[in-house]
């Protein structure tokens, strides 16, 4: 395909996504793409497992016919790669969804799921457990991270509330919380960690899907499902925020209630995801913009599209993280940016050339 026909195909796809007719088709194609991506990602690696083998193992585990694979290879699919791929999908979907919601709610294209201090709090909680031994071995890294995330978000919310509760104050409070807990994390690592602990913490901070099991998949899926339902029910309210909270109120939105509900749900789902996988960057900041370029700014379509795009993206980014330098593994947060930035650069250029003005009113 030549560059120009590629551009034409892309803008045709974009036009189809922006009209109503394409929506259902998009949903089906997106879900199929996600399922294929997960199956393909599982088959990639050293064990020589095919996409069909993945299918057979899933069928067997769900009560169907024997897969015919050796127990070891079956274990690789069911115990290692499938939960890992599913968690990648869930994390990608959740982070991208939260990013899209927060960007609209806070009217800031630079907002991401970590803007309210959740990931910094999680990292502080994690180093408290790993380095300082808080909890005396009874607390897992994930539990410590979750507690830290909830604590820091609570503090940010309190600060935002006491300082007036406007959009700007929420953002500034989040930044204050983020800086404070990052500093706290660095302080603990600097003062107390040995080389091994430092490496483990650093790896976790950059995101890792390496040591997940079905428990994490179940917990994070439940959080994502709840968040999707809550956010989709408020898609119209999010649209109404386009011209600011006053305009949203005049369109019948209960601004305070919607804002609090959405801040809470995005923070909780982010906390759950970060606790399981570390703070995976890029996805929540950039993929909502990519999804907007394809399906437009209406949240009824944007939120599911963003979630799907995030899921597919992170499945592939994690596959890259796991295989590019095999047998060494990259932190997935490094892979997301390495894989994602070139794609995003292309998208930015297409938008400037092919589509209607990308909006001068941004930041």
């Amino acid at each position, binding site marked *: 395909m030549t560059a120009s026909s590629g551009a034409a195909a892309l803008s045709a796809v974009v036009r189809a996504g922006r009209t109503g007719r394409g929506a259902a088709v998009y949903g089906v194609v997106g879900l199929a793409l996600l399922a294929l991506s997960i199956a393909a990602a599982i088959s990639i690696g050293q064990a020589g497992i095919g996409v069909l083998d993945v299918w057979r193992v899933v069928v067997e585990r769900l009560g169907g016919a024997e897969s015919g694979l050796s127990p070891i290879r079956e274990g690789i699919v069911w115990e290692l790669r499938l939960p890992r791929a599913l968690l990648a999908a869930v994390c990608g979907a959740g982070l991208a969804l939260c990013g899209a919601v927060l960007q609209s709610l806070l009217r800031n294209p630079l907002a991401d799921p970590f803007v309210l201090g959740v990931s910094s709090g999680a990292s502080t909680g994690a180093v408290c457990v790993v380095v300082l031994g808080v909890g005396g071995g009874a607390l897992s890294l994930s539990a410590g991270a979750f507690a830290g995330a909830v604590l820091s978000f609570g503090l940010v919310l309190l600060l935002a509330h006491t300082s007036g509760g406007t959009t700007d104050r929420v953002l500034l409070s989040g930044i204050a919380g983020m800086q404070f807990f990052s500093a706290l994390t660095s302080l603990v690592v600097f003062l107390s960690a040995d080389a091994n602990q430092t490496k483990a913490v650093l790896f976790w901070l950059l995101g890792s899907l390496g040591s997940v099991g079905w428990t994490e998949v179940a917990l994070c899926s439940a959080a994502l499902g709840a968040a999707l339902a809550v956010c989709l029910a408020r898609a119209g*309210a999010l*649209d109404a925020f386009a*011209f600011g909270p006053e305009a949203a109120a005049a369109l*019948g939105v*209960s601004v305070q209630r919607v804002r609090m509900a959405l801040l809470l749900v995005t923070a909780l789902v982010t906390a759950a995801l970060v606790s399981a996988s570390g703070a995976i960057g890029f996805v929540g900041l950039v993929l909502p913009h990519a999804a907007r370029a394809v399906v437009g700014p209406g949240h009824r379509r944007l939120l599911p599209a963003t979630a799907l795009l995030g899921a597919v993206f992170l499945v592939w980014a994690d596959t890259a993280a796991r295989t590019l330098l095999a047998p060494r593994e990259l932190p997935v947060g490094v892979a997301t940016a390495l894989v994602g930035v070139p794609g995003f650069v292309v998208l930015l250029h297409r938008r400037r050339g092919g589509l*209607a003005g990308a909006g001068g009113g941004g930041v």
Partner: protein
Amino acid sequence: MSLRAERVAWRAAGRLVLDGVSLCPEPGTTVGLLGPNGSGKSTLLRLLAGVRPTASGVVTLDGVPLPELGRKAVARRVAVVEQHAETGADLTVRDVVRLGRIPHRGAWSAPGAADEAAVRDALERTRLTERAAQSWHTLSGGERQRAQIARALAQRPSELLLDEPTNHLDIQHQLALLALVVRTPVTSVIALHDLNLAAMFCDHVAVLRHGRVVAAGAPGAVLTEELIGDVYGVRSVVTAEGPGGRPSVRFLPG
């Protein structure tokens, strides 16, 4: 009946911004809110829209206090156009007009045929049908205000509240915008700075100073040299040379 304010008050940082204001627009008419900066025009509009609670007094719609109706029900009847709307979102004109249908939809329901019909109708009335697919950010100031009015009309309101909608527009667009508001068959309340525009387009004007109504009535009765001198502190000559014998205000230096 319709929308009315009864002795409403509002306070900000301990200061009374509105102090016992009553307003009862006749259905279908255009009412101008006049008064210097800080006299409470915008605040009164926000109370009328129900987006701010009153400190005392009550705003009613068909006799029912706004808080009892609920925000969504109010937004199905009362639409607001701000003096300046800005967004970072990459919206088309149609996207903007569609926002007006939000109060008419449930949490989960997709836009239906009635929504699309209201949007189409609003675009036609504001002569924006050809611009519907164009990006909001490529519109001129006058077109943006027209799109906001189209969004407001898509709400299918019985009352339209406008806060200095002509502020950033050149004179041609000021006249066109107010003509559009006046020929729209709803009750309109418009905060305005320009006394001549108010005289020309409003059936009724109310003049605010320090949060109180100091004069109200037909423009010809209210806009006198004495009142203008008293409220704005400027000298003027008022003649009946406006269209249809309405007052025309000429300001004098010093």
